[in-house]
């Protein structure tokens, strides 16, 4: 072998070595790891309304055999769950289910003209020691008529998740989410109601306050990740849950509850009265929410708000809707909301059953799960009307003729999304409302 051949081989090796020792480009060492985190501003909700008792009173008659009070802002319960009414004696623990007259009022709203609205109340009355609530806009008036009222000291409201009402409470037993005292010693005096877990010993009572420190709240790919600290333990029979809510249509989706901090991932659904290393007497020092939206079939841009609420547990399934007990809420991150389709349009006409155009009819639009109208308009002389900007979703359109106060026809309208020039846009839908 000649020296020139050897030199050629060595030079080839040197060239290969230089290729192997390549220098990276300016960004060659950065690798994007998964999806970006889309942050939410999770904080106290301005419109939160927690369960409360008002107008409580006991009869002034010598018999002291009637207690009346009104309960507001009770969250809906799940299937086969109910709220329970009980009387208890804080000295002995003796407890009894309080058979009561229960008047339930559900309010909704509808516009009569374009500029005004009417509150519509549906009232029903039952007798029993328990009741259920399916709608957030429900007020419960309760009248307990019981000859043994003087033998007890407190009214307790419980949830079916705590089980049947016991005959005797232990000194350390914690129960009930709403309570008020009406008898102290031999004196009858109704006191303020307290939201929070009740116990015979005042040291065992845990008043509820809606407060938490948000460490992190974000969407990450298909998952929702929330890290929280210093939550108050929920009232007995309640737990924390996270919901997505579409304020435009009323559509909701439950993402799940709290789980324990790492390395444990146990459910904290028992945080009301349970005992575990991750609870203190009154607090949950650290908790997480991890939800896989793909597994839940949830499309986040279809919603406008994320809410951490307290909800009653028990029954066969979680409630179908969140209540107004919102501890924390956040608007969808703009980077998520921007994925939703641009608004569509609903146009229509109002005719009589004979086909004649009807003018000046009040037409209003309501999300399929809403009790409050989202848009109102008045039909023109030709009977034509339109809502020019309607988000995608399912709505119901109602028609109230001139001079009337109730809708005479309605139609369910679905505004779908379609692809226009590569972008999602709401569809245009035509609806005919017919008035008798």
């Amino acid at each position, binding site marked *: 072998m000649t020296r020139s051949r050897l*030199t050629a081989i060595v030079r080839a*090796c040197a060239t290969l070595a230089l290729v*192997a020792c390549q*220098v990276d480009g300016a960004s060659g*060492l950065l690798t994007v*790891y998964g999806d970006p985190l889309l942050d939410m501003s999770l904080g106290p909700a301005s419109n939160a309304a927690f369960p409360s008792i008002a107008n409580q009173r006991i009869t002034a008659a010598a018999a002291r055999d009637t207690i009346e009070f009104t309960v507001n802002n009770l969250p809906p319960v799940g299937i086969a769950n109910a709220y329970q009414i009980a009387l208890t004696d804080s000295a002995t623990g003796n407890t009894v289910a309080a058979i009561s007259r229960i008047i339930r009022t559900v309010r909704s709203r509808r516009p009569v003209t374009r500029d005004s609205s009417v509150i519509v109340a549906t009232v029903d009355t039952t007798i029993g020691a328990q009741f259920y609530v399916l709608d957030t806009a429900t007020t419960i008036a309760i009248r307990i008529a019981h000859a043994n009222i003087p033998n007890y000291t407190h009214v307790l409201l419980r949830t079916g998740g705590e089980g049947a009402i016991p005959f005797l409470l232990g000194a350390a037993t914690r129960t009930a989410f709403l309570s008020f005292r009406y008898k102290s010693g031999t004196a009858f005096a109704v006191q303020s109601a307290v939201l929070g877990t009740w116990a015979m010993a005042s040291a065992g009572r845990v008043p509820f306050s809606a407060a938490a420190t948000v460490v992190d709240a974000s969407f990450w790919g298909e998952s929702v*990740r929330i890290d929280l600290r210093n939550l108050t333990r929920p009232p007995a029979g309640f737990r924390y849950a996270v919901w997505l809510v579409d304020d435009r249509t009323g559509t909701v989706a439950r993402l799940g509850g709290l789980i324990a901090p790492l390395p444990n991932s146990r459910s904290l659904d028992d945080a009301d009265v349970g005992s575990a290393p991750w609870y203190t007497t009154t607090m949950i020092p650290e908790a997480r929410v991890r939800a896989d939206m793909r597994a839940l079939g949830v499309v986040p841009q279809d919603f406008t708000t994320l809410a951490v609420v307290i909800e009653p547990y028990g029954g066969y399934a979680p409630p179908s809707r969140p209540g107004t007990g919102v501890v924390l809420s956040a608007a969808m991150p703009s980077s998520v909301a921007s994925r939703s389709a641009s608004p569509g349009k609903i146009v229509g006409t109002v005719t009589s059953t004979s086909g004649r155009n009807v003018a000046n009819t009040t037409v209003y639009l309501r999300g399929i799960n809403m009790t409050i109208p989202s848009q109102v308009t008045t039909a023109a002389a030709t009977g034509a009307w339109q809502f020019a900007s309607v988000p995608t979703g399912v709505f119901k359109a109602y028609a109230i003729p001139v001079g009337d106060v109730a809708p005479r026809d309605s139609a369910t309208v679905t505004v779908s999304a379609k692809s226009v020039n590569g972008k999602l846009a709401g569809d245009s839908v035509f609806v005919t409302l017919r008035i008798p």
Partner: protein
Amino acid sequence: MRRLNVLVIGLLLAAPALGAQPATARTAVGVRLGELVFAQATALKPTPFIGLEAAWQLPWSPARRRADAPSFGIGVSLDVSRPRTDGAQFPLAAVDRGDTTYLYAMAQRVTLVQSGVQAQIGVPLAGARVIGYAGGGWYAMLLGSRASGGSRRLIHPMASFGLAVDDPLTRTLSARVQFGGTTYVQFNRSALDATRSLPEEQRIRDAAPAPAPAPRTPTNLQYSVMLRFTPGGV
């Protein structure tokens, strides 16, 4: 890096000049190309390397100075490579842009120099020579200044061992296939972390896969093909 390349090329180009030495000198020089496959926990990705070796071969017995006799030798070697770290084995970097936080796995390219001295024992086998070797030396890592905030060098001992098959191509040239391992001592994986100059991600640690435990003495594999030149012939 440029100076290092110049040094390596200089050494390689100087190798043919060794052919001028007396034919009785039993010195061999070689240049090799191969791949370093690091233990996963080192957070270094496999990389090609180039190396030089000089060896002084001795027969078992001076009376048996023959090509087919067992041999004993001392070799010195110098290997250079530019491995890249595995960013997934370090904390992620988080960069905020409005309501969006981008996550990055940060890697850096390291200049790795392995030098050592090995004892080599060779036995003839079917016209070739099977060689076992073992020795020690040093490994040096030169970290990227952009990632580590300044020029940093880590120099620690290492042990090397392996097997090779040497096949003569001509009287003066042979090809050697080598397979062996190097064990790094006092290895410090965290020193390779390129994330330190950026905000460290704290939010998805429970979702990111945990890195393999970092050993202090990882053993890496390497294989190579060497072209050896023995001035004066075997």
